[in-house]
C-alpha cells in the first residue's frame, strides 16, 4: 500500500542495511517485506523496509560495524572497539535526550492532570458544560502519539482506578458510529469489531454471559451500564489525538454525543490540536462551542528545550565529539524551516554520532585502546591529518624551532599518542570555555534587554555555530554588548550581578570575576564609572579569549564532526533533482561498458530530452516523428560501424545498460514505434505527461496531444 506512505505527514526514509537497525531503535520500526503499513505505524518517524523471503544471511558479528580496510587496514578488534565506544557514547546521549523530551512534556501533563481532576462534578445541574481541554501540541504530528499515550498513562497512574482514559484517533473513523464504537470498545475492553456488519460487531462487543443483550456496539448505553458497574470510576477522559484532522462534522458530532450523555457519564474531553487556536476554532460551529467549557494547554517544547539540549549534550563536560558549525547550522535551519520537531533534531544528532564512529577508523582515538600504540597504520593515519600537518609546518617554519618535539612526533608513536591526549584535553577545555562564553552572552543579552527592548535576543543555539567557528569574536553582537556594558547604570550592574549569580556555578571564572566587583562599596559617579569600565574590559577580555575557533585545536578533525552533505542527503534527499538528472544524464548512473556507448542515451532519456524541448502541449505525431528521426539519424551514422562490427545485441550476456540502449540500427520502424510507446507510457507513469485531445489552432477535428504536467525547475 504505497500510497499510505505518502498520505502521512511524518518523515520516512528507507535506510538500507544494518545501520538502519540502529537508527530504528529510537522511534522507528522495522517492517518486514511488503507488510502493510497499518494505522498503528502511521506516526513513526522512520521505516526500515526489509526484503521478505530470502533474508540476508546474518553476519556472525555481534554488531553492525564493518572493517574499513580502504583507509586503514583494521583488525576486528578495532572495529569492536569503535562499536563499543559508539554504544557507550550513544547510550549516554540517549538517556539525556529521553529525559529532555520527557521533561518538556512533564509540566503540560501536570497541568492537564490538574485540570482533569478539577473539573466539575458531572451531575451538577442541567447547565453543566462538557469540560474540554485543548492541548496545543504543535505541528509535529509524529510526536503526538507519544505525548498522548504518556498523558493517558500519567493521569491513570496518579488517579488509580478513579479516572479511566481512552485515546482515540479520528483519522480512521469516518463516521460517528465508528468513533463511538472505538471509545466504547476501548473502555468496555472488548475486541474491536473491524467490519461494518452489525451482527459480528454486536457479537464481539456484548459482554460475555449476557446473550440476551443485543445492543449495538456504538450505543453509549453500554458505557452507562459499564460505568454503573465500575463504581469507583469518577471520570472518563476521552483523548482525541487528531482533533483538527477529522473530517467535516465528525468532531462536533462526537462532542454533541458526549454532551448528551454528560448527565450519566462523567466525560472529560481532551483534544490534541496541531494547528493554532484561531484555525481550530473555525472548524467548530458556535452551536457546539456553547456546549463546552474549555481551557487550553500549551505543550512547551521549543527553544528552551534546544538550549537545554545544547547545554547538556553538545557542550557538557562529558562531550567527546562536537558537532561542527556547518552541520549544526544546517540542522537548526531544517528545524526552523521544515520540522519544528525536537525528536527529528535529536535523531539527527544521533545519526551524526553514528556516522562518525561508523566511517572514521580513527574515531577510536577518543578513547584509545592500548594496542593502538603498536598499530603503525593508525599512527601513520594520524600523521596525515591536515591539522597535524599544518601544525608541524608552522613549527618548522618558526625560527626558534623545538626540533626534538617535532622529530618525536614524526618518529615516535607514543609521542604522537601523548600529543593526541594533550590535544584532547585542550579540546575539553575549549568546550567548557565555549559553554561559559555562550552562557555569558546569554546573561548579557538578558541584562541589556531590560535596558533596551528593541533588540531581539539571540538564543545560544543560534549563536553556537558562530561561536565555535570563531566568527563571534569581535562580531556586531559582541561589540554591542560590550558597548552596553560601558554605559550601564548602577541598577543594571546589580541586575547583571544577580543574573550571573543565577546562571553560573560558584567555581566558574565568571563568578570569580563578579565576586571581585564589590558593588556595595562603590558610591559616587567616579567610582561607578571606574567599575563599569573595569567590568566591560574584563568581559571583553574574557570573550576574546574564549570565543576562539575550533580549528585552532590540532587534531580537531577527530573531535569535531562536520559533514553537512552526508546528513542533509540522509534526512532530506533531493528526489526531484535526482530523477531529472538521471533522465538528462543517464551516464551518471549507468556503468557504460565502452567509451563509444557513453554518448548513447536510453530511449527514455531521448523521449525526455524531446519532452523538455517542446511546449506545454505536444502533438503526438510530432513527438513520434522527432523520436523516430533521432534514431534514424543514428542509424545513418552507425551503419558504417556496424558493417565492420558484429552485432552484439543478440549475445546472451548483455548487461543492463545495453538493454536500455539497444543499438538502434537493429530496429525497424515498427520496433522503434514500440519503443516510443514504451517511453511515453513510462513518462506517463513518472507523472510527466497526460493524454488529452485538443481542438486548438482552428482544427475542427480533435488532435491527439500530450499535455506536459511537470513544471521545470521546481
Amino acid at each position: 500500500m504505497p500510497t499510505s506512505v505518502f498520505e502521512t505527514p511524518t518523515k520516512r526514509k528507507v535506510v538500507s542495511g544494518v545501520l538502519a537497525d540502529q537508527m530504528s531503535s529510537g522511534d522507528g520500526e522495522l517492517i518486514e517485506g511488503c507488510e502493510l503499513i497499518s494505522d498503528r505505524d502511521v506516526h513513526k518517524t522512520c521505516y526500515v523496509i526489509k526484503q521478505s523471503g530470502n533474508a540476508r544471511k546474518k553476519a556472525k558479528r555481534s554488531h553492525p560495524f564493518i572493517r574499513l580496510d580502504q583507509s586503514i587496514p583494521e583488525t576486528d578488534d578495532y572495529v569492536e572497539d569503535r562499536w563499543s565506544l559508539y554504544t557507550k557514547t550513544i547510550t549516554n546521549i540517549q538517556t539525556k535526550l529521553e529525559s529532555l523530551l520527557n521533561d518538556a512534556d512533564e509540566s503540560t501533563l501536570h497541568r492537564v492532570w490538574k485540570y482533569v481532576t478539577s473539573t466539575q462534578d458531572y451531575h451538577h445541574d442541567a447547565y453543566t458544560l462538557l469540560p474540554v481541554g485543548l492541548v496545543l501540541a504543535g505541528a509535529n504530528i509524529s510526536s503526538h502519539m507519544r505525548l498522548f499515550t504518556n498523558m493517558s498513562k500519567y493521569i491513570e497512574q496518579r488517579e488509580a482506578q478513579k479516572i479511566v482514559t481512552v485515546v482515540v484517533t479520528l483519522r480512521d473513523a469516518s463516521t460517528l458510529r465508528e468513533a463511538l464504537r472505538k471509545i466504547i470498545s476501548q473502555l468496555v475492553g472488548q475486541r474491536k469489531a473491524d467490519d461494518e456488519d452489525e451482527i459480528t460487531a454486536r457479537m464481539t462487543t456484548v459482554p460475555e454471559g449476557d446473550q440476551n443483550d443485543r445492543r449495538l456496539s456504538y450505543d453509549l448505553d453500554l458505557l452507562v451500564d459499564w460505568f454503573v458497574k465500575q463504581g469507583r470510576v469518577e471520570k472518563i477522559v476521552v483523548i482525541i489525538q487528531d482533533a483538527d484532522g477529522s473530517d467535516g462534522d465528525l468532531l462536533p458530532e462526537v462532542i454533541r454525543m458526549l454532551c448528551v450523555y454528560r448527565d450519566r457519564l462523567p466525560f472529560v474531553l481532551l483534544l490534541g490540536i496541531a494547528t493554532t487556536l484561531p484555525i481550530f476554532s473555525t472548524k467548530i460551529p458556535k452551536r457546539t462551542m456553547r456546549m463546552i467549557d474549555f481551557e487550553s494547554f500549551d505543550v512547551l517544547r521549543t527553544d528552551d528545550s534546544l538550549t537545554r539540549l545544547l547545554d547538556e549534550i553538545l557542550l557538557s563536560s562529558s562531550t567527546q565529539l562536537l558537532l561542527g558549525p556547518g552541520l549544526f547550522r544546517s540542522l537548526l535551519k531544517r528545524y526552523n524551516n521544515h520540522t519544528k520537531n525536537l525528536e527529528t533534531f535529536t535523531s539527527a544528532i544521533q545519526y551524526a554520532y553514528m556516522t562518525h564512529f561508523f566511517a572514521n577508523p580513527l574515531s577510536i582515538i577518543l578513547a584509545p585502546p592500548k594496542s593502538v600504540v603498536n598499530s603503525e597504520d593508525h599512527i601513520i593515519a594520524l600523521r596525515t591529518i591536515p591539522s597535524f600537518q599544518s601544525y608541524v609546518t608552522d613549527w618548522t617554519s618558526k625560527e626558534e624551532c623545538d626540533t626534538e618535539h617535532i622529530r618525536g612526533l614524526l618518529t615516535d608513536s607514543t609521542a604522537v599518542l601523548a600529543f593526541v591526549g594533550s590535544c584532547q584535553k585542550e579540546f575539553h577545555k575549549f568546550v567548557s570555555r565555549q559553554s561559559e562564553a555562550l552562557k555569558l552572552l546569554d546573561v548579557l543579552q538578558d541584562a541589556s534587554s531590560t535596558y533596551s527592548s528593541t533588540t531581539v535576543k539571540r538564543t545560544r543555539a543560534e549563536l553556537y555555530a558562530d561561536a565555535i567557528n570563531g566568527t563571534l569574536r569581535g562580531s556586531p553582537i559582541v561589540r554591542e554588548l560590550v558597548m552596553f556594558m560601558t554605559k550601564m547604570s548602577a541598577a543594571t550592574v546589580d541586575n547583571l550581578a544577580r543574573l550571573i549569580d543565577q546562571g553560573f556555578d560558584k567555581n566558574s571564572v565568571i563568578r570569580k570575576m563578579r565576586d571581585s566587583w564589590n558593588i556595595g562599596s562603590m558610591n559616587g559617579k567616579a567610582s561607578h564609572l571606574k567599575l563599569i569600565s573595569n567590568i566591560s574590559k574584563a568581559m571583553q577580555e574574557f570573550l576574546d579569549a574564549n570565543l576562539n575557533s575550533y580549528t585552532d585545536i590540532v587534531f580537531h578533525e577527530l573531535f569535531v564532526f562536520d559533514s553537512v552533505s552526508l546528513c542533509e542527503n540522509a534526512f532530506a534527499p533531493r528526489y526531484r533533482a535526482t530523477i531529472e538528472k538521471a533522465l538528462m544524464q543517464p551516464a551518471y548512473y549507468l556503468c557504460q561498458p565502452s567509451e563509444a556507448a557513453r554518448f548513447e542515451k536510453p530511449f527514455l532519456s531521448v523521449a525526455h530530452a524531446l519532452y523538455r524541448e517542446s511546449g506545454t502541449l505536444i502533438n503526438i505525431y510530432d513527438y513520434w516523428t522527432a523520436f523516430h528521426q533521432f534514431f534514424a539519424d543514428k542509424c545513418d551514422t552507425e551503419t558504417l560501424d556496424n558493417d565492420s562490427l558484429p552485432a552484439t545485441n543478440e549475445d546472451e550476456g548483455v548487461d543492463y545498460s545495453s538493454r536500455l540502449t539497444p543499438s538502434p540500427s537493429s530496429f525497424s520502424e515498427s520496433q522503434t514505434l514500440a519503443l516510443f510507446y514504451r517511453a511515453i507510457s513510462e513518462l506517463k507513469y513518472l507523472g510527466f505527461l497526460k493524454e488529452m485531445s485538443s481542438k486548438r489552432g482552428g482544427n475542427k477535428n480533435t488532435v491527439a496531444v500530450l499535455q506536459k504536467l511537470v513544471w521545470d525547475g521546481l
Partner: protein
Amino acid sequence: MTYLTDNRLQELTLEFPARYNQFDLLNSLLSKDKTTNPTAIALVGQPSSGKSCVLRRFLQEVQFSHTWLSCDECVTLRVLLQRILAALRAIGTQDPNKLDYSILCHNSTLFVAQLNDTLRNLALEEAHFVVLDRIDELGEPYESFYQLIIKIGNMLRYDGITFILVSSGSEPRSSATTTFPHIYFPPYSKAESLAILRKESPESIRSMLGSTERKLSDVQLTSLWSSYSQVIIDTYFPLYGPDMQQLKAIVRRVFPTYAKPVLDGIVGILASNGNYHGFVKLYKINQPLLTSEEFVRNSFVSYVQGTGTADSTGHHEMPMYAKYLLCAAYLASYSKPRNDIRLFSRIRESRRRFRNTAKQKFKDKINSRNLAPSPFEYERLLAIFQCIVPDRIDSVTDIQTQVATLSTLKLITRVGIGSDSSGGSSIDVLGSRTKWRVNVSWDIILQISRDIKLQIENYLMD
C-alpha cells in the same frame, strides 16, 4: 373527558408562563381511554420554547403511563427502534428499569411486526404514550421514520399506544399535508422570557454564588436577581432571541461576577423596590462585563484572550516553510491561472495589458474571496511557493512532508477523488493529476503572512 380542571391549568400556567393554550390542547387531546387517542401527535416549535418540559409536566400531572425516549442519544435509527421496543416490553414487569435488549430491529417493516407482537403480549388496558423527544436530532435522517410514525395507526392491529413527537426542526415536507394533531409552541416574547428568568428559586440563586454564601437574605437575593434578569434580557435578548437555554446558561455564567460587588459590600442592596440607586451603581460597575464578548463564547480565541489564561499564539508556530506553503496554497486557490504570469513573473510579458472579455469582466465583478476556493495542481502550488519564498530552495522531501502535514491537518484538502478515468491510480496523492484546495480563511492567511512578513496582497488581483 378532560383530566385537569381549568383552575389547575391556570396554576400550571403560573409555573410555565405563556403556555396555557398548549396545556389546554394536551389536556383535551390525550386521555387514558385507549380508544380515543390519536396514534401520533406532534409538538413543534423553535428550540427551547418549552415543548419538552411542558409535556413532561403534563404527563406527570395526569399520571398517564408513558415512556420517554431522547432521540438525540440514538446514533442510528436502529438504536432508537431497539429502545422503543425494549421500553415497551418492560411495561408491567417487576423491574421496569431493567430493560430487555434481546430484540434487534433492522428496519421499519420489522419494527411494525415486532411492535404488533409486543402490543399483543402487553394487552394494554389503558393508553400508553411513547414520547420521542428531539426527533430532529436523531443521528440519521429521520424523515422516513417520521412518516412511518404518522401512519403507523393503519399498520397496527392492537391499539392503545400513542406516539408523541417532539421536534424543533421543520417538519419533513412530505408530512406537512397529512392531518394529525399538532401543538405549536410559539417563541417567547421578551417579557415572557424575563418572566421565565425571574422564576429562579432563592436556593438555586444561592447555589450559583457558591453554597457557602450566607450574606444575603432570600428577599435580597430575589430582588437582586430580578433586577439582574432585566439587565441580562436587555443585553442579550437581541443576540440570542428567545433561546431560553442560551439565556439561562449565560445568566449562570455572568451572575457570580455580576454579584461580586454586592457580596464584597461595595454596593448595598435593600429588599425594597425603591432602592434604584443601588442597582444603578451595580449596573455601572458591571457595564464593561456586559459589553465584552467574554461570556458569549463564539470562538476559542476571544475567550482565551479575554480571560488571559494562555497566550494562544507564539509557542506553537508552524515551521516557516509550512506557512509559506499555506500562503502559496491560498494564492493558488484564489488567483486565476491566467493571471499567474502577471502576478508571479518578472519577465517582460507580465507587463502586457490583458484584455478582459465581457464574460470575464462579469466574473471578475464577484470578489473571489466570497467564492469557494478553486482547485489547483500540486505543480502550481510548488511554483507559486518558489515565487514567494525569499531564497531559492531545492525540492527536498521535507517540502513534500510539509504538504502532507498540511493535508493531514485539513488545511489543504484533496479534491476529486476517483475522478481519474484514464486508468491511473486514483488515490495517488502525489500524482500530478491530483488537485488540491485550500481550506483556510482569509483572516488566518493574513495573520500567517504577517508572521512571515509576506505582503500577500501584492499577489492578489482584488
